[in-house]
Protein backbone atom coordinates (compact mmCIF):
# COMPACT_ATOMS: atom_id res chain seq x y z
CA UNK A 1 0.00 0.00 0.00
CA UNK A 2 2.76 2.39 1.00
CA UNK A 3 4.33 1.90 -2.42
CA UNK A 4 1.23 3.09 -4.18
CA UNK A 5 1.40 6.44 -2.39
CA UNK A 6 4.84 7.29 -3.68
CA UNK A 7 5.82 6.73 -7.31
CA UNK A 8 9.18 5.12 -7.84
CA UNK A 9 11.59 6.79 -10.27
CA UNK A 10 11.95 3.73 -12.49
CA UNK A 11 12.26 5.74 -15.72
CA UNK A 12 15.02 7.95 -14.39
CA UNK A 13 16.88 4.96 -12.99
CA UNK A 14 16.78 3.27 -16.40
CA UNK A 15 17.94 6.39 -18.27
CA UNK A 16 20.87 7.09 -15.95
CA UNK A 17 21.65 3.38 -15.83
CA UNK A 18 21.93 3.29 -19.61
CA UNK A 19 24.08 6.42 -19.70
CA UNK A 20 26.31 4.97 -17.01
CA UNK A 21 26.65 1.70 -18.92
CA UNK A 22 27.63 3.60 -22.06
CA UNK A 23 30.29 5.57 -20.16
CA UNK A 24 31.78 2.40 -18.67
CA UNK A 25 31.60 0.62 -22.03
CA UNK A 26 33.61 3.43 -23.62
CA UNK A 27 36.06 3.43 -20.71
CA UNK A 28 36.86 -0.26 -21.14
CA UNK A 29 36.73 -0.62 -24.94
CA UNK A 30 38.28 2.65 -26.10
CA UNK A 31 41.41 2.56 -23.94
CA UNK A 32 43.75 2.97 -26.93
CA UNK A 33 41.90 6.07 -27.96
CA UNK A 34 42.09 8.08 -24.76
CA UNK A 35 45.02 6.66 -22.77
CA UNK A 36 47.74 8.54 -24.72
CA UNK A 37 46.11 11.85 -23.78
CA UNK A 38 45.09 10.96 -20.24
CA UNK A 39 48.58 9.90 -19.21
CA UNK A 40 50.26 12.99 -20.67
CA UNK A 41 49.90 14.95 -17.45
CA UNK A 42 50.22 18.72 -17.10
CA UNK A 43 47.34 20.61 -18.68
CA UNK A 44 45.82 17.30 -19.86
CA UNK A 45 45.09 16.50 -16.23
CA UNK A 46 42.04 18.73 -16.61
CA UNK A 47 40.62 15.97 -18.84
CA UNK A 48 40.92 13.56 -15.93
CA UNK A 49 39.20 15.92 -13.50
CA UNK A 50 36.45 16.63 -16.03
CA UNK A 51 35.85 12.94 -16.68
CA UNK A 52 35.54 12.39 -12.95
CA UNK A 53 32.79 14.97 -12.70
CA UNK A 54 30.87 13.49 -15.63
CA UNK A 55 31.11 9.99 -14.13
CA UNK A 56 30.11 11.16 -10.69
CA UNK A 57 27.10 13.06 -12.05
CA UNK A 58 25.77 10.25 -14.23
CA UNK A 59 26.71 7.29 -12.07
CA UNK A 60 25.87 9.17 -8.87
CA UNK A 61 22.34 9.83 -10.11
CA UNK A 62 21.98 6.26 -11.28
CA UNK A 63 22.99 4.78 -7.91
CA UNK A 64 20.68 7.24 -6.14
CA UNK A 65 17.64 6.21 -8.21
CA UNK A 66 18.71 2.57 -8.09
CA UNK A 67 18.32 2.35 -4.29
CA UNK A 68 15.11 4.39 -4.44
CA UNK A 69 13.58 1.92 -6.90
CA UNK A 70 14.58 -0.93 -4.60
CA UNK A 71 12.75 0.87 -1.80
CA UNK A 72 15.84 1.62 0.28
CA UNK A 73 15.21 5.15 1.41
CA UNK A 74 16.31 7.37 4.27
CA UNK A 75 14.23 7.63 7.39
CA UNK A 76 11.52 10.23 7.16
CA UNK A 77 11.82 13.04 9.66
CA UNK A 78 8.80 13.17 11.95
CA UNK A 79 7.95 15.46 14.74
CA UNK A 80 8.16 14.06 18.21
CA UNK A 81 9.96 10.92 17.16
Amino acid at each position, binding site marked *: MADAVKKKPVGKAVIFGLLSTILYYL*LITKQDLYMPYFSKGEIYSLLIIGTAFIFSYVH*GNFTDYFWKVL*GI*EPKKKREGR
Partner: protein
Amino acid sequence: MQDVAAQVSQFVDLQLWHVIYLVFVGFVGGLVSGFIGSGGAFVLTPSMMSMGVPGIIAVASNMRHKFPKALVGAIKRAKFGHVDVKLGIIMGLSAEAGVFVGASVQQYVKQTLGDTGSSLYVSTALIIVLATVGTYVLLDAFKSMKLDRMGKAKEAEEEKPTRIALALRKIHIPGTMIYFKSINDRISFLITVPLGFATGFLAATIAVGGFIGVPSMIYLLGVPSLISSGTELVIAFLMGTIGTFKYAWHGFVDIRLAMLILLGSLFGVQLGAIGTTYVKGYMIKFVMGVIMLIILVSRATVVPVYLAQLGWISALSPQMVSLLKNVSFGINLLGLFVAAFIIFKNLIKGIYQEKRYRAHELAYKEGKIKG
Protein backbone atom coordinates in the same frame (compact mmCIF):
# COMPACT_ATOMS: atom_id res chain seq x y z
CA MET B 1 57.25 11.60 -26.02
CA GLN B 2 59.39 8.70 -24.83
CA ASP B 3 58.67 9.14 -21.17
CA VAL B 4 54.98 9.33 -22.01
CA ALA B 5 55.24 5.90 -23.59
CA ALA B 6 57.08 4.64 -20.53
CA GLN B 7 54.37 5.94 -18.27
CA VAL B 8 51.62 4.30 -20.28
CA SER B 9 53.38 0.95 -20.04
CA GLN B 10 53.40 1.40 -16.25
CA PHE B 11 49.64 1.02 -16.28
CA VAL B 12 48.81 -2.66 -15.90
CA ASP B 13 46.63 -4.72 -18.21
CA LEU B 14 43.26 -5.17 -16.58
CA GLN B 15 41.98 -8.71 -16.14
CA LEU B 16 38.34 -9.55 -15.50
CA TRP B 17 38.95 -10.62 -11.90
CA HIS B 18 40.76 -7.32 -11.28
CA VAL B 19 37.66 -5.49 -12.45
CA ILE B 20 35.27 -7.54 -10.32
CA TYR B 21 37.51 -7.25 -7.29
CA LEU B 22 37.92 -3.46 -7.61
CA VAL B 23 34.19 -2.93 -8.03
CA PHE B 24 33.46 -5.09 -5.01
CA VAL B 25 36.06 -3.58 -2.66
CA GLY B 26 35.00 -0.16 -3.96
CA PHE B 27 31.43 -0.90 -2.91
CA VAL B 28 32.36 -1.92 0.62
CA GLY B 29 34.79 1.00 0.94
CA GLY B 30 32.11 3.39 -0.30
CA LEU B 31 29.60 2.01 2.17
CA VAL B 32 31.95 2.75 5.05
CA SER B 33 32.85 6.23 3.72
CA GLY B 34 29.24 7.20 3.29
CA PHE B 35 28.71 6.26 6.91
CA ILE B 36 31.78 7.48 8.81
CA GLY B 37 33.10 10.05 6.31
CA SER B 38 36.25 8.26 5.23
CA GLY B 39 37.80 4.84 4.88
CA GLY B 40 38.35 2.32 2.16
CA ALA B 41 41.77 3.66 1.17
CA PHE B 42 43.57 1.37 3.56
CA VAL B 43 42.29 -1.66 1.66
CA LEU B 44 42.11 -0.27 -1.88
CA THR B 45 45.69 0.95 -2.14
CA PRO B 46 47.31 -2.33 -1.04
CA SER B 47 44.80 -4.25 -3.20
CA MET B 48 45.88 -2.40 -6.32
CA MET B 49 49.53 -2.88 -5.45
CA SER B 50 48.98 -6.63 -5.15
CA MET B 51 47.64 -6.57 -8.73
CA GLY B 52 51.03 -5.26 -9.81
CA VAL B 53 50.10 -1.59 -9.94
CA PRO B 54 53.13 0.51 -8.88
CA GLY B 55 52.73 2.14 -5.47
CA ILE B 56 52.53 5.72 -6.64
CA ILE B 57 49.88 4.92 -9.27
CA ALA B 58 47.86 3.00 -6.68
CA VAL B 59 47.95 5.96 -4.30
CA ALA B 60 47.15 8.44 -7.08
CA SER B 61 44.29 6.38 -8.49
CA ASN B 62 42.81 5.91 -5.06
CA MET B 63 42.97 9.67 -4.50
CA ARG B 64 41.38 10.11 -7.89
CA HIS B 65 38.33 8.01 -7.09
CA LYS B 66 37.99 9.57 -3.66
CA PHE B 67 36.90 13.05 -4.68
CA PRO B 68 33.89 12.14 -6.86
CA LYS B 69 32.86 9.65 -4.19
CA ALA B 70 33.17 12.26 -1.46
CA LEU B 71 31.24 14.73 -3.61
CA VAL B 72 28.32 12.36 -4.16
CA GLY B 73 28.38 11.37 -0.49
CA ALA B 74 28.51 14.98 0.70
CA ILE B 75 25.55 16.02 -1.47
CA LYS B 76 23.51 13.11 -0.17
CA ARG B 77 24.43 13.76 3.46
CA ALA B 78 23.71 17.48 3.01
CA LYS B 79 20.11 16.56 2.13
CA PHE B 80 19.84 14.94 5.57
CA GLY B 81 21.27 18.06 7.23
CA HIS B 82 24.53 16.31 8.13
CA VAL B 83 26.94 18.77 6.55
CA ASP B 84 28.39 22.03 7.84
CA VAL B 85 29.70 23.39 4.55
CA LYS B 86 31.51 26.38 6.06
CA LEU B 87 33.35 24.23 8.59
CA GLY B 88 34.15 21.69 5.85
CA ILE B 89 35.67 24.30 3.56
CA ILE B 90 37.76 25.94 6.28
CA MET B 91 38.98 22.56 7.55
CA GLY B 92 39.50 21.33 3.97
CA LEU B 93 41.70 24.23 2.94
CA SER B 94 43.84 23.97 6.07
CA ALA B 95 44.00 20.23 5.47
CA GLU B 96 45.56 21.01 2.10
CA ALA B 97 48.46 22.74 3.88
CA GLY B 98 48.75 19.66 6.10
CA VAL B 99 48.92 17.39 3.05
CA PHE B 100 51.72 19.52 1.64
CA VAL B 101 53.83 19.41 4.81
CA GLY B 102 52.98 15.75 5.46
CA ALA B 103 54.14 14.79 1.96
CA SER B 104 57.41 16.72 2.43
CA VAL B 105 58.11 14.97 5.72
CA GLN B 106 57.37 11.66 4.02
CA GLN B 107 59.84 12.54 1.26
CA TYR B 108 62.50 13.48 3.79
CA VAL B 109 62.10 10.21 5.70
CA LYS B 110 62.33 8.29 2.44
CA GLN B 111 65.56 10.03 1.49
CA THR B 112 67.23 9.45 4.84
CA LEU B 113 65.94 5.99 5.78
CA GLY B 114 64.91 4.52 2.40
CA ASP B 115 61.69 2.72 1.48
CA THR B 116 61.64 0.47 4.52
CA GLY B 117 62.25 3.38 6.85
CA SER B 118 59.40 5.25 5.29
CA SER B 119 57.09 2.24 5.70
CA LEU B 120 58.14 2.02 9.34
CA TYR B 121 57.46 5.72 9.80
CA VAL B 122 53.98 5.35 8.29
CA SER B 123 53.24 2.29 10.44
CA THR B 124 54.41 3.99 13.63
CA ALA B 125 52.31 7.10 12.96
CA LEU B 126 49.34 4.87 12.19
CA ILE B 127 49.76 2.76 15.33
CA ILE B 128 50.06 5.77 17.64
CA VAL B 129 47.04 7.57 16.17
CA LEU B 130 44.85 4.47 15.92
CA ALA B 131 45.69 3.20 19.40
CA THR B 132 45.00 6.46 21.21
CA VAL B 133 42.14 7.92 19.18
CA GLY B 134 40.56 4.55 18.35
CA THR B 135 40.42 3.42 21.99
CA TYR B 136 38.99 6.75 23.12
CA VAL B 137 36.30 6.81 20.42
CA LEU B 138 35.29 3.21 21.09
CA LEU B 139 35.08 3.66 24.87
CA ASP B 140 32.95 6.74 24.35
CA ALA B 141 30.63 4.80 22.04
CA PHE B 142 30.29 2.04 24.65
CA LYS B 143 29.36 4.62 27.28
CA SER B 144 26.49 5.92 25.12
CA MET B 145 25.38 2.38 24.26
CA LYS B 146 25.17 1.54 27.94
CA LEU B 147 23.03 4.60 28.59
CA ASP B 148 20.79 3.61 25.69
CA ARG B 149 20.40 0.08 27.03
CA MET B 150 19.57 1.40 30.49
CA GLY B 151 16.62 3.16 28.93
CA LYS B 152 18.17 6.60 28.96
CA ALA B 153 17.91 6.89 25.19
CA LYS B 154 17.66 10.64 25.30
CA GLU B 155 20.89 11.05 27.21
CA ALA B 156 22.64 8.61 24.89
CA GLU B 157 21.45 10.43 21.81
CA GLU B 158 22.05 13.90 23.06
CA GLU B 159 25.68 14.67 22.48
CA LYS B 160 26.92 17.28 24.84
CA PRO B 161 30.06 19.11 23.81
CA THR B 162 33.08 17.99 25.84
CA ARG B 163 34.64 20.25 28.44
CA ILE B 164 37.56 20.91 26.12
CA ALA B 165 35.16 21.99 23.37
CA LEU B 166 33.40 24.39 25.72
CA ALA B 167 36.72 25.82 26.90
CA LEU B 168 37.96 26.27 23.32
CA ARG B 169 34.79 28.15 22.42
CA LYS B 170 35.40 30.57 25.25
CA ILE B 171 38.72 31.65 23.79
CA HIS B 172 37.89 34.89 22.09
CA ILE B 173 40.44 36.16 19.60
CA PRO B 174 39.14 39.36 17.98
CA GLY B 175 38.83 39.27 14.23
CA THR B 176 39.11 35.50 13.99
CA MET B 177 35.76 34.38 15.37
CA ILE B 178 33.50 32.50 12.94
CA TYR B 179 29.98 31.28 13.51
CA PHE B 180 29.35 27.61 12.72
CA LYS B 181 25.79 26.40 12.51
CA SER B 182 26.67 22.83 13.50
CA ILE B 183 27.67 23.97 16.99
CA ASN B 184 25.45 27.05 17.02
CA ASP B 185 28.33 29.04 18.43
CA ARG B 186 31.36 31.03 17.41
CA ILE B 187 34.86 29.64 17.47
CA SER B 188 38.17 31.14 16.37
CA PHE B 189 39.47 29.85 13.06
CA LEU B 190 42.90 29.80 14.70
CA ILE B 191 41.55 26.73 16.53
CA THR B 192 40.02 24.97 13.53
CA VAL B 193 43.05 25.51 11.27
CA PRO B 194 45.44 23.25 13.26
CA LEU B 195 42.76 20.55 13.31
CA GLY B 196 42.41 20.73 9.54
CA PHE B 197 46.17 20.75 9.23
CA ALA B 198 46.48 17.59 11.34
CA THR B 199 43.79 15.92 9.22
CA GLY B 200 45.71 16.69 6.03
CA PHE B 201 49.03 15.70 7.55
CA LEU B 202 47.59 12.33 8.52
CA ALA B 203 45.95 11.90 5.13
CA ALA B 204 49.30 12.44 3.42
CA THR B 205 50.96 10.00 5.80
CA ILE B 206 48.51 7.12 6.22
CA ALA B 207 45.91 7.88 3.50
CA VAL B 208 42.97 8.21 5.92
CA GLY B 209 42.75 11.73 7.34
CA GLY B 210 39.28 11.15 8.71
CA PHE B 211 40.66 9.22 11.66
CA ILE B 212 41.83 12.58 13.01
CA GLY B 213 39.32 14.87 11.30
CA VAL B 214 36.11 13.28 12.59
CA PRO B 215 37.16 12.72 16.24
CA SER B 216 38.68 16.21 16.43
CA MET B 217 35.42 17.79 15.24
CA ILE B 218 33.44 15.70 17.75
CA TYR B 219 35.63 16.10 20.82
CA LEU B 220 37.47 19.39 20.31
CA LEU B 221 34.82 21.46 18.56
CA GLY B 222 31.74 19.74 19.95
CA VAL B 223 30.16 19.00 16.55
CA PRO B 224 27.58 16.15 16.73
CA SER B 225 28.92 12.83 15.35
CA LEU B 226 26.53 12.64 12.39
CA ILE B 227 27.47 16.15 11.24
CA SER B 228 31.18 15.46 11.80
CA SER B 229 31.16 12.42 9.55
CA GLY B 230 29.12 14.28 6.90
CA THR B 231 31.41 17.30 7.02
CA GLU B 232 34.45 15.05 6.70
CA LEU B 233 33.20 14.23 3.18
CA VAL B 234 33.56 17.91 2.24
CA ILE B 235 37.12 17.89 3.58
CA ALA B 236 37.83 14.67 1.67
CA PHE B 237 36.41 16.18 -1.49
CA LEU B 238 38.66 19.26 -1.29
CA MET B 239 41.76 17.24 -0.44
CA GLY B 240 40.94 14.70 -3.13
CA THR B 241 40.42 17.26 -5.89
CA ILE B 242 43.63 19.16 -5.27
CA GLY B 243 45.56 15.93 -4.64
CA THR B 244 44.28 14.38 -7.87
CA PHE B 245 45.27 17.43 -9.83
CA LYS B 246 48.79 17.22 -8.42
CA TYR B 247 49.21 13.55 -9.26
CA ALA B 248 47.48 13.84 -12.63
CA TRP B 249 49.76 16.73 -13.55
CA HIS B 250 52.67 14.28 -13.40
CA GLY B 251 50.72 11.61 -15.30
CA PHE B 252 50.34 9.18 -12.41
CA VAL B 253 46.58 8.69 -12.47
CA ASP B 254 45.19 5.55 -14.08
CA ILE B 255 41.69 6.66 -14.93
CA ARG B 256 40.47 3.11 -15.59
CA LEU B 257 41.37 1.92 -12.10
CA ALA B 258 39.84 5.01 -10.51
CA MET B 259 36.57 4.78 -12.46
CA LEU B 260 36.19 1.07 -11.78
CA ILE B 261 36.50 1.61 -8.05
CA LEU B 262 34.00 4.43 -8.43
CA LEU B 263 31.56 2.06 -10.15
CA GLY B 264 31.13 0.14 -6.92
CA SER B 265 31.84 2.89 -4.44
CA LEU B 266 29.00 5.18 -5.56
CA PHE B 267 26.50 2.40 -4.86
CA GLY B 268 28.14 2.00 -1.47
CA VAL B 269 28.38 5.66 -0.56
CA GLN B 270 24.66 6.21 -1.22
CA LEU B 271 23.74 3.23 0.90
CA GLY B 272 26.11 4.25 3.72
CA ALA B 273 24.66 7.76 3.72
CA ILE B 274 21.10 6.38 3.89
CA GLY B 275 22.28 4.20 6.78
CA THR B 276 23.20 7.24 8.86
CA THR B 277 19.58 8.39 8.95
CA TYR B 278 18.59 5.25 10.88
CA VAL B 279 21.23 5.32 13.59
CA LYS B 280 22.06 7.35 16.65
CA GLY B 281 25.26 9.41 16.72
CA TYR B 282 27.20 6.93 18.79
CA MET B 283 26.98 4.29 16.03
CA ILE B 284 29.33 6.48 13.97
CA LYS B 285 31.80 6.44 16.85
CA PHE B 286 31.35 2.70 17.31
CA VAL B 287 32.01 1.80 13.66
CA MET B 288 34.93 4.19 13.49
CA GLY B 289 36.51 2.88 16.69
CA VAL B 290 36.14 -0.75 15.59
CA ILE B 291 37.75 -0.07 12.21
CA MET B 292 40.61 1.87 13.77
CA LEU B 293 41.47 -0.87 16.24
CA ILE B 294 41.31 -3.64 13.63
CA ILE B 295 43.64 -1.72 11.31
CA LEU B 296 45.91 -1.14 14.27
CA VAL B 297 46.32 -4.91 14.68
CA SER B 298 46.88 -5.29 10.96
CA ARG B 299 49.66 -2.71 10.92
CA ALA B 300 51.32 -3.98 14.05
CA THR B 301 51.63 -7.40 12.34
CA VAL B 302 53.99 -6.11 9.66
CA VAL B 303 56.20 -3.95 11.86
CA PRO B 304 58.70 -6.81 12.50
CA VAL B 305 59.20 -7.08 8.72
CA TYR B 306 60.34 -3.46 8.49
CA LEU B 307 62.47 -3.70 11.63
CA ALA B 308 64.25 -6.76 10.19
CA GLN B 309 64.81 -5.04 6.84
CA LEU B 310 66.40 -2.11 8.62
CA GLY B 311 68.62 -4.52 10.54
CA TRP B 312 67.24 -3.43 13.89
CA ILE B 313 66.18 -7.01 14.75
CA SER B 314 67.48 -10.35 13.36
CA ALA B 315 66.45 -11.23 9.82
CA LEU B 316 63.17 -13.03 9.10
CA SER B 317 62.80 -15.89 6.60
CA PRO B 318 61.12 -14.96 3.28
CA GLN B 319 58.20 -17.28 4.10
CA MET B 320 57.70 -15.48 7.39
CA VAL B 321 57.76 -12.09 5.65
CA SER B 322 55.12 -13.06 3.09
CA LEU B 323 53.03 -14.75 5.80
CA LEU B 324 53.03 -11.61 7.96
CA LYS B 325 52.18 -9.42 4.99
CA ASN B 326 49.29 -11.65 3.94
CA VAL B 327 47.93 -11.87 7.47
CA SER B 328 48.12 -8.08 7.74
CA PHE B 329 46.21 -7.59 4.50
CA GLY B 330 43.64 -10.18 5.57
CA ILE B 331 43.03 -8.34 8.85
CA ASN B 332 42.61 -5.08 6.89
CA LEU B 333 39.96 -6.68 4.74
CA LEU B 334 38.31 -8.14 7.83
CA GLY B 335 38.12 -4.66 9.37
CA LEU B 336 36.30 -3.32 6.35
CA PHE B 337 33.85 -6.23 6.34
CA VAL B 338 33.11 -6.01 10.04
CA ALA B 339 32.28 -2.31 9.56
CA ALA B 340 30.13 -3.09 6.52
CA PHE B 341 28.31 -5.77 8.51
CA ILE B 342 27.46 -3.38 11.35
CA ILE B 343 26.20 -0.77 8.86
CA PHE B 344 24.07 -3.32 6.97
CA LYS B 345 22.60 -4.68 10.17
CA ASN B 346 21.52 -1.21 11.28
CA LEU B 347 20.24 -0.32 7.84
CA ILE B 348 18.08 -3.41 7.50
CA LYS B 349 16.74 -3.09 11.04
CA GLY B 350 15.97 0.59 10.44
CA ILE B 351 14.21 0.02 7.12
CA TYR B 352 11.98 -2.69 8.59
CA GLN B 353 11.01 -0.47 11.48
CA GLU B 354 10.31 2.39 9.11
CA LYS B 355 8.12 0.19 6.87
CA ARG B 356 6.13 -0.99 9.84
CA TYR B 357 5.74 2.56 11.06
CA ARG B 358 4.60 3.79 7.65
CA ALA B 359 2.04 1.00 7.44
CA HIS B 360 0.72 2.06 10.85
CA GLU B 361 0.57 5.69 9.74
CA LEU B 362 -1.34 4.74 6.62
CA ALA B 363 -3.79 2.54 8.52
CA TYR B 364 -4.31 5.35 11.01
CA LYS B 365 -5.00 7.88 8.25
CA GLU B 366 -7.43 5.56 6.45
CA GLY B 367 -9.20 4.84 9.68
CA LYS B 368 -9.58 8.55 10.27
CA ILE B 369 -11.09 9.17 6.83
CA LYS B 370 -13.59 6.34 7.24
CA GLY B 371 -14.43 7.40 10.75
